[in-house]
């Protein structure tokens, strides 16, 4: 699969669409915590200053004030980094957005180790575990800018709270203008018969490359892009695993309590097969360039290919 270098990161795709959407839907507002020039929410703020509220470097107050406005029924987009939204402001997100099921859409940049260069304080590597655990919360993670645009629309057009994990840096473009994205959907980006590799966000590209590497070993891998994490596409996962008989879940997140655990639980109940999941192994990462960091922490294509080959070997030995 030859992929085009992406012209922009997913955070920019999301915010570009938010700017366009501002003329379509004249009712929603955006709250920011002095990070608009990083999430690109500033674009909306420049176009619609009367609907943009920069609450300063005070995430808990920003999220709570957004909840106050959303109490009226209004849709509010809240922009920050994943670490701050999911940890500093976690309680108002849980008790005052998820519990009352408000129309608050969390724009969460710097997901996983895509903020590699910023170091651990800025790497949201537990965000999916935290956000998928709250009742009423729906969780999305686009892998490319086009998916980010489309998934912004999905979040705006579906009632209730959403968390959308976005990336710091541009990676690749996989989707064209006519791709459809739905809540609870997935994309099969590569068909294969020996193992399923399920990934989301930036790791989709490592999974695709791993699948290419695996062909040299005679392994034919299927690659799923789980762009919707809660709800996620259980039918597609089960259908793929029933065909391939093996599963590797790869995610830029702690290995514990992420989609790997979620899918392991599904497979145990419905389709037990040789399984592994790749993520941070109960550890923090560090600063550095993105390719070096994801390789060191087991998420590069090369590392994923090794993990996948071992799972296929387990299948053979069974």
């Amino acid at each position, binding site marked *: 699969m030859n992929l085009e270098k992406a012209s922009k990161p997913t955070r920019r795709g999301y915010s570009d669409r938010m700017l366009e959407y501002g003329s379509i839907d004249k009712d929603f507002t955006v709250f920011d915590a002095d990070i608009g020039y990083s999430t690109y929410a500033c674009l909306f703020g420049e176009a619609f200053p009367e609907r943009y509220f920069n609450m300063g470097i005070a995430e808990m107050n920003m999220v709570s*004030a957004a909840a*106050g406005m959303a*109490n009226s029924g209004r849709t509010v987009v809240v922009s920050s980094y994943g670490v701050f939204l999911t940890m500093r402001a976690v309680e108002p997100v849980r008790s*005052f957005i998820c519990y009352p099921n408000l129309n608050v859409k969390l724009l969460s940049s710097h997901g996983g180790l895509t903020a590699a260069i910023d170091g651990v304080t800025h790497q949201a590597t537990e965000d999916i575990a935290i956000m998928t655990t709250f009742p009423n919360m729906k969780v999305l993670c686009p892998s490319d800018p086009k998916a980010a645009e489309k998934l912004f629309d999905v979040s705006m057009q579906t009632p209730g709270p959403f968390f959308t994990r976005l990336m710091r840096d541009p990676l690749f473009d996989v989707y064209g203008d006519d791709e459809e994205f739905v809540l609870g959907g997935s994309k099969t980006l590569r068909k294969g018969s020996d193992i399923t590799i399920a990934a989301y966000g930036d790791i989709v590209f490592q999974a695709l490359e791993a699948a290419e590497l695996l062909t040299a070993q005679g392994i034919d891998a299927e690659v799923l892009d789980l762009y919707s994490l809660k709800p996620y596409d259980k039918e597609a996962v089960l259908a793929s695993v029933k065909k391939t008989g093996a599963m590797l879940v790869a995610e830029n997140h702690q290995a514990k309590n992420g989609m790997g655990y979620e899918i392991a639980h599904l497979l145990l109940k419905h389709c037990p097969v040789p399984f592994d999941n790749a993520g941070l192994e109960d550890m923090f990462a560090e600063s550095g360039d993105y390719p070096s960091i994801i390789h060191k922490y087991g998420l590069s294509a090369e590392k994923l290919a090794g993990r996948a080959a071992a799972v296929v070997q387990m299948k053979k030995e069974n």
Partner: protein
Amino acid sequence: MEQQRTIQKRVRYLEEKAKEVRVEIVKMIHEAQSGHPGGSLSAADIMTALYFDILRIDPNKPEWPDRDRFVLSKGHACPVWYACLALKGFFPIETLKTLRKFESKLQGHPIAGKAEGIDASVGSLGIGFSQAVGMAIEAKMTRSKYMVYTVLGDGETNEGIVWEAAASAHKYHLDNLVAVLDRNNLQNDGIAEQIMPMEPLDEKFKAFNWHVIQINGHNMADVVDALMKAGDYSGKPVIIIANTEKGKGVSYMENVRGWHGKPPNDEQLAIALEDLKGSLK
């Protein structure tokens, strides 16, 4: 002269109403055998003035778009809120007996949409204040005329978010926001100024560019006067620092630390009702 008499009549009416509110507070907490009497009683005069004099609300139309909004940021004191809502007619008085019970609309800490008249979910200190800021921004943005009122506890000002919210209320010139600080100087573990010294609270809020009014929170004439002035004040958010007594109106609870979150037993209920009956005369 005529106006003076009308105000005196209003104040007398509110004083009587506040006694009814206090009776309902102790009865419902006794019935539930759980809840927070001390901070409910200290806020009873403030809440009565709001619900029976100040707020533009209609119990028959709890979702009326132009209604004034109210947020009890010190959400644990919800018995006083529930008592006011029931006595005002938002739901039957009988409902108060279900406080904290299985499948009741009167949750241990109030949830928007569960009971009529609850505009925001509260219970985690500081967050109600921030929500009130968001609601006041909403009113400004939509050029709506309604006011947003919120009542805070003094222990609650220990929370950093209170000061984040105070700064943002100044930024957006929220003169449609009125906060009342129930300064009873007792929190869960003891005397508020010993647990965490917050004085001078008036100077702190002034430094955050709020207009500050200080009153005796149990003098109904002062409470009404301050709330009216606060509602008319323009250019800045207003905070009324109301000096109160925790447990006010029940002899053995007044200024006693242990009555933050403890229900009265049968005997204590009888004494409380006798105290409140006595004060009715």
